[in-house]
């Protein structure tokens, strides 16, 4: 097995990894704020809003992500009347699926973070004259994000690996090129290389979150 061969199959895989990373970034940047919005809805005193948020989380967590992706890519266009307007580029469709799915998980993580905050924090802020908005942005959110950080880190790493589901909707990404090389050359090496590339990506993320946790230790 020559170095040239390894290089020749790694190059397309790295190009595929760009798709992986792009999806990761889009999903994380959009699903975190959306997740937080759902958390706020779930806590809202307006009952239909809370009910809607709970149902949303239940459906998105209760069904496989793969099913959701297939549903959006190949299912929606089959709907009568409106179906023809729901045909999306498959990568865009996958992004929509990932954002919607991960938002539900982040919503639950943030809900847990909010529950961990002592009511004394709200009381101290109220007595000092903070408005509800000031209390939320200056006192509650920073503490919530700190509490949620380890769980967010965990979820982000899961997201890196879940990007491999792009394979199922035929968007060429890292795993797709590995599989192609395996079929063509009849060797297991491309799978190893794919594994190493995933490990490198998750290592970077792990280090980033470790640093964040240390930076926001508040000690």
């Amino acid at each position, binding site marked *: 097995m020559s170095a040239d061969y390894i290089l020749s199959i790694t190059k397309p895989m790295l190009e595929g990894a760009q798709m992986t990373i792009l999806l990761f970034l889009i999903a994380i940047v959009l699903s975190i704020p959306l997740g937080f919005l759902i958390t706020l809805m779930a806590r809202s005193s307006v009952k239909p809003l809370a009910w809607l948020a709970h149902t949303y989380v239940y459906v998105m967590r209760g069904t496989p992500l793969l099913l959701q992706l297939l549903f959006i890519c190949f299912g929606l266009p089959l709907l009568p009347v409106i179906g023809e307007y729901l045909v999306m580029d498959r990568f865009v469709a996958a992004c929509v699926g990932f954002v919607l799915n991960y938002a539900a998980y982040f919503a639950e993580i943030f809900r847990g973070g909010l529950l961990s905050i002592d009511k004394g924090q709200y009381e101290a802020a*109220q007595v000092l004259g903070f408005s509800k908005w000031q209390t939320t942005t*200056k006192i509650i959110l920073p503490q919530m994000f700190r509490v949620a950080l380890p769980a967010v880190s965990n979820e982000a790493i899961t997201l890196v690996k879940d990007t491999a589901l792009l394979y199922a909707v035929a968007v060429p990404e890292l795993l797709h090129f590995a599989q192609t090389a395996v079929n063509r050359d009849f060797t297991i090496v491309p799978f190893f290389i794919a594994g190493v590339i995933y490990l490198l990506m998750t290592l970077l993320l792990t280090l980033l979150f470790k640093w964040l946790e240390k930076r926001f230790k508040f000690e």
Partner: protein
Amino acid sequence: MAIIQVSNLKKSFGELEVLKDVSFEINKNDVVAVIGPSGSGKSTMLRSLVYLEQVNGGSIRVADDYLVKDGVYSSSQQIKQITAKMGMVFQHFNLFPHLTVRENLEIAPQVVKREAENVIRSRSAELLEKVGLADKANVYPAKLSGGQKQRVAIARALMMKPDILLFDEPTSALDPELTGEVLQVIKQLASEHMTMMVVTHEMGFAREVANRIMFMDNGEFVEAGTPEELFTNAKYERTRAFLQRALK
């Protein structure tokens, strides 16, 4: 004129009546200790004054304005203005753990009052000096002892320049050897004529520092007097019985 006037205050949690027709007055420069058995309504009464509890009836007047009159609350804007005259120190400190000691002091003047940065900074330095924690300005609360946390909490409340400072069992969560440093700070404030109301179980402190002691029992305001009057010559049997138990 009384700086706080409370009349016929009533408060229930469901079936349980925690405040039954409580009336009293606080004058400027008063240091009032509120004593009584656990569950007698002391904390609820104190928390009602700053709108952390809503009462079911009665009136609370602070300076010239009614927070609540005959059970009807003022507008939320007025409530905000009225409660801003009072500072509160909690049993469990309730410092903001994600902010340093200095930031804990400065955040409310910055965010709520929008005061000038240099004005805030010099006041926080002065107050940290006063409570003996100037060297802890850049430390997070997690690194402080309970006594230090409570002193920061007192300084934080003073940053808003309240006319009245309320203490809800300020030493109850502390190890016995740490209560002294907190009581010392309160004593110093008393000597500077800060108007204060302190819910406490520290009888020695109440006797030494307060100019008036209020005894509450079972949701009722039983009697008040100077420490001498109450400790040596209480009018009611249940006051005498409580003091006898507490001083044992």
